[in-house]
């Protein structure tokens, strides 16, 4: 059983990585899109960011140096990522449940990272009495249970909302319920494992060390193995669903909502425009006159109702 768990764990990690890469590569290999920014754009410098202004407020903006403020961007990004500010502002009743859920997941990511550090230290022969590793273990012992409890509690709250709130229920599909139940069950098993089998996560650390070292060390605790299976399957599952927003949000914000880069002195953009204007158009409406062979450049410069000059 434990050997199979290792195999499933490796497979799940591969699925996770491939699925994440597939989504990212799929996005970045899409052709250039038109500008569709939405203000406020966070990286605007100075006071403009505060009132939602843009460089387009300047006369002959193209002759002015383009400025961008990382500080202003972080001022928006950090509260949004850490505290889900948009939900707080626009959907407070949901925030009370979705915030602990997401905070629990953030803790879970930190927890896995700390387990990784502890495992590497273990493999390197650094004992738990070393000051740094001791601190890592102490934080792990706090972050792990916090992650399980917050995610489970937030997940239960979200499940309750999706079942009882008619407005939300109307838009909730089987997948929503399945996802939430998967998280709740995974965290419930993790809590039980922590309480009854692995209170200081030494078993978990050893399992991760074995994974890293490809050792396939046998594990005899069935509940622990169930927990590992649930965790790795959840990790593999996340990027296959809408929950992939946790990393795709980067593109939705930076490339679309805040994608305000003008096409001034940008040869790469000109080149990309040249590519898309040569795509064939096959829209069927008569006024488009796209036959699947004519390009966007041809269709866009074709006037279906052109009058002769003399008729004007």
């Amino acid at each position, binding site marked *: 059983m434990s050997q199979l768990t290792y195999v499933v764990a490796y497979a799940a990690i591969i699925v996770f990585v491939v699925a994440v890469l597939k989504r990212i590569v799929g*996005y970045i290999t*899409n*052709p*250039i*899109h*038109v500008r*569709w*920014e*939405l*203000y*406020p754009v966070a990286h*605007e410098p100075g006071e*403009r960011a505060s*009132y*939602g*202004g*843009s*460089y*387009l*407020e300047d*006369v002959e903006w*193209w002759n002015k140096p383009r400025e961008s403020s990382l500080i202003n961007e972080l001022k928006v990004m950090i509260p949004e990522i850490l505290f889900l500010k948009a*939900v707080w*502002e*626009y*959907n407070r009743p*949901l925030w009370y449940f979705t915030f602990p859920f997401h905070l629990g997941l953030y803790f879970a990511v930190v927890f896995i990272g700390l387990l990784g550090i502890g495992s590497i230290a273990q493999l390197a022969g650094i004992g738990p009495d070393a000051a740094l590793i001791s601190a890592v273990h102490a934080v792990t012992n706090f972050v792990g249970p916090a992650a399980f409890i917050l995610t489970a509690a937030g997940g239960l709250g979200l499940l309750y909302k999706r079942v009882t709130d008619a407005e*939300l229920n*109307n*838009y*909730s*599909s089987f*997948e929503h319920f399945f996802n939430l139940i998967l998280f709740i069950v995974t965290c419930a098993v993790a809590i039980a494992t922590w309480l009854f089998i692995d209170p200081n996560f030494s078993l978990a650390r050893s399992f991760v060390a074995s994974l890293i070292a490809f050792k396939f060390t046998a594990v005899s605790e069935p509940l622990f193995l169930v927990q590992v299976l649930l965790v790795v399957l959840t990790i593999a599952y996340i990027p296959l669903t*809408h929950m*992939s927003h946790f990393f*795709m949000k980067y593109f*939705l*914000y930076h*490339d*679309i909502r805040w994608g*305000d880069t*003008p096409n*001034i002195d940008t040869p790469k953009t*000109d080149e990309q*425009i040249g590519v898309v*204007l040569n795509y064939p*158009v*096959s*829209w*069927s*409406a008569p*006024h488009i006159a*796209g036959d699947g062979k004519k390009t*966007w450049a041809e269709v*866009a410069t074709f*006037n*279906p*109702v*052109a009058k002769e000059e003399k008729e*004007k």
Partner: protein
Amino acid sequence: MSRKALKINDISKDTEKLSSVPNEDLMPLPWDIEEKEWDEFPEDLKERNVCILDDVNILPIPNPKTKEEEDELVNKFLSGMKKLFTKENNWTFLSMLETTMEHCAKCNTCSDACHMYEASGKNEMYRPTYRTEIFRRIYKKHVKKEPLSDLRNGKVDLNWKTVARLGELSYRCNVCRRCAQTCPIGADNALVAREIRKIFSQEMGITVPELHKNGSMLQLEFGSSTKMNSLVVRDNVDFIDEDFSEETGVDIKTPWDVEGADILLIHNAGEVMAWPDNIAAFSMIFNAAGLSWTLSSDLAAYDSINYGVFYDDVQFARTAILHAQAAEKLGVKKIVLGECGHAHKALTVIADRVLPKPLKIPRESCFPILRDIVLSGKIKLDPSRNNFPVTLHDPCNVTRLMGIIKPQRDIMKAICPQFREMHPHGPHNYCCGGGSGFAIMHRNNISEWRNKIAGRKKIEQILNAFSDCRGPETPKYVCAPCSNCKGQIRDMIERYELLEKENMTYSGIVELIVNAMVDVNPGYIKWEEY
């Protein structure tokens, strides 16, 4: 079926109407007003077009007469939907559309941001996610072909009624993108409304006549959706020059086709017909400031409208290219857009990645130039001439979609002693209700719908902005620097008799500037004229 408990799959049901918004559901306004009931659809309209969504018909979808015609509607829609998800046919918006399809958490955080949802008394049909969720379920099952899609994502029966209702429903959104602004993930439900419109136009050839046949096609044929050709528009502007020279005491000469001028100014040609004082005001200000500028009489170059922005990428590109070609031909240094919001966004922002390199003439808004003129002291201004309450409507395309917020306010603060903001404003403003082309539509119940639902939040904002000076004894001015918004606000002022009851008028920003110019005869703004 309760209108508020509408289910996603109700869109496909064999019912006479999907929903309706009775007067008792409407969001209350700050004063008592008697709302009319919806007029019944005329029989010939019901015979001709599919009228099964609610009490309004905007998109004229021909009624299918046979099973074959019903199937054809569905098949053409699916064919268009498939093309919408190909890079060749939809490189313009594919990234935004795919990410919205894939990553929306269906948390409904965006709902309360929608002015139509609020104004309709939270009718489910107007919830920004309603049409998107229908579209998404069809996409996942029939285009993406996800295994067990009905189970995983939820079910929508795809039949001709689903298609017809979804098409009509795509015209229950102003595409103001206020909903997108609130999305924690960055999904864009307003975009989906526009993408559905594209399927109908670009694949099925079904379009709103005001936008297509009498809109973008007239612009491509005559040069303007007003049907003015270059000779007519020049004649009209000459007449405006003459008329307003006499009235203002200032010699107005609007330059045409000046090669090598610094600025090609492009007006919305609707101004020439409906608000000639706007055209004259620009000419007076630009001349007084000593700018080198011109209008162009080339095809479409004297009309900045680009209705393609509302429904069709190809029509959009065609119009944008004509605008840029005119500028290139004259050899101007830049294009400046007059007071027209969607023209601003179309040519300055969206066309930025459509225009090929030879047509990359810099483009900018008129507001920063006007701000610089006003603050520079180049023209003498007397703010006391504008000593009446003024509020500013922010056109969505200029503010939320371009971030041009402060220049207009700098002008207001300089020349309008009683300027007051609406709340919220700037990038968080509410649409006037005429956005995405509705302002020019007046068929059957459309005007009533614009006033009752689409514009309801805006009229509430306007009334609230003037809450300290209600009544006809105080003249009030709504500054709406956008042709489309002006049309909508004009209609609401008329519908709610606000000129009579509140002595309220509306117009643009240049009219306020000219009204304050000391070299101009007093009284440029006339309350009774609009």
